[in-house]
């Protein structure tokens, strides 16, 4: 029963939402909307559970004086402070926005900016492999960069057209092939989950 009930609920809800997407039936649309609202409520509870998980792990770090434990204090203080502020004053309050915009957002932007450096190191690793495929990749990337950078057109006026051909024809055809495969794979995965044949996510390996 512990397994069957979640599977039955998944099947009914999955079927209902899928049918509602294709058919114009008022009752189904209302139910679907209601289910989506339940989803929001469940997500809110899940956030509560996740916060408990976070607090438990970091409280444990402080208690056992694990390496870098003062950072756990910073995390717990920040978590409780921002959660308290959000509950007391709402997330649109100037104080909440001040901390979010001036402390959290710059940190997030900094992490995102690091992508540029990671792209360089990944590209170096991809291009140095001495295989035919790596050579094709290198030549394509060089043409693409020259086609997109203004200096490329000064060197040779055909570079932008070559770059467009690579992106719109060669790359796009490959991507669409993968997209069709992934889309049908997702349908198959969804069907297996709804029918309870794939149960990895609830702890069972298969039917």
């Amino acid at each position, binding site marked *: 029963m512990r397994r069957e009930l979640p599977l039955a609920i998944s099947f009914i809800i999955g079927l209902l939402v899928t049918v509602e*997407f*294709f*058919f*114009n*039936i008022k009752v189904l649309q209302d139910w679907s909307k209601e289910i989506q609202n339940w*989803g929001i409520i469940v*997500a809110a509870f*899940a*956030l509560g*559970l*996740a*916060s408990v*998980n*976070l607090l*438990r*792990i970091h409280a*444990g770090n402080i208690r056992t004086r694990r*390496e*870098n434990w003062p950072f756990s204090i910073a995390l717990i203080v920040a978590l409780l402070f921002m959660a308290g502020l959000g509950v007391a004053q709402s997330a649109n309050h100037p104080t909440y926005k001040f901390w979010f915009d001036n402390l*959290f957002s710059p*940190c*997030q*932007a900094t*992490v*995102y900016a*690091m*992508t540029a450096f*990671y*792209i360089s*190191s*990944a*590209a170096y*690793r*991809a291009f140095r492999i001495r295989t035919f495929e790596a050579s094709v990749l290198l030549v394509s990337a060089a043409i693409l960069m020259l086609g997109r950078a203004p200096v490329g057109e000064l060197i040779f006026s055909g570079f932008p057209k070559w770059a467009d051909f690579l992106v719109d024809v060669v790359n796009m055809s490959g*991507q669409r092939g*993968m*997209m*069709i*495969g*992934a889309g*049908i*794979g*997702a*349908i*198959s*995965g*969804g*069907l*297996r*989950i709804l029918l309870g*044949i*794939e149960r*990895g*996510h*609830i*702890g*069972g*390996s*298969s*039917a």
Partner: protein
Amino acid sequence: MLIAKRIFSFWYLIFVCGSILFTMYRSMKLGKVPKIRKIAGLDAIEEAVGRATEMGRPVHFSPGIGGITAIEAPQTFAGLAMLNYVAKLTARFDVPLIVTIRTPEVLPLAEETVSQAYVAEGKIDAFKADNIRYLSSQQFAYAAAVFGIIVREKPAANFLLGAFWAEALMLAECGSFMGAIQIAGTAQLSQVPFFVASCDYTLIGEELFTGAAYVTQDPGQLGAIVGQDIGKVVSAALIILGVILKVIGDKTLENLMKL
């Protein structure tokens, strides 16, 4: 009754689902279990966990940063199915498994998946709930926290299987710098090149969805893969037919697809 512009999609979905159900039935009830080609990334999972065992270092697993209700949900579920397999291996080999979570709804599923895998291997005492870690719902805060875990705990194997976006490259490069054997898989096509460049093995697109079938060799799931292939063959045939009809100026198929 059917909503306009979704009629063709509906019948196509019925056809694909019908093909999958038929091939699943054929495999489960008639015993005609198909063989699927070798997928290096999936074969390497056991080797990666074995390497972690030899090195006495943990295994890190991320089921992606997608949720369980949006379009990327199948990828998250595929990641969780693979987590089940990896957790069984780590339980069997007594290797610590660290699972990092970004979406709160995925946390209870991941906890259940790992704990049940440890129960199945008879090692429930080795299960540590604190190793299933919710980090942050914010994308880059999650990425930064995973960096920290990878640098501090030095996992010997890094599994990134699920839906990933801009943090994909960062996580894979971080694992690469730390010398972990890396197996990644996603159906987010814009992130696939990054995984290919940074990881030892990459499951591209649909390979992620075949993972559970491949590792469990479950007849029903293997049968579903054949159904998928029928859908792909028909899609390819429709593309070729569409090109021919477009060239000769016939719009029948185009109009049919617009229904």
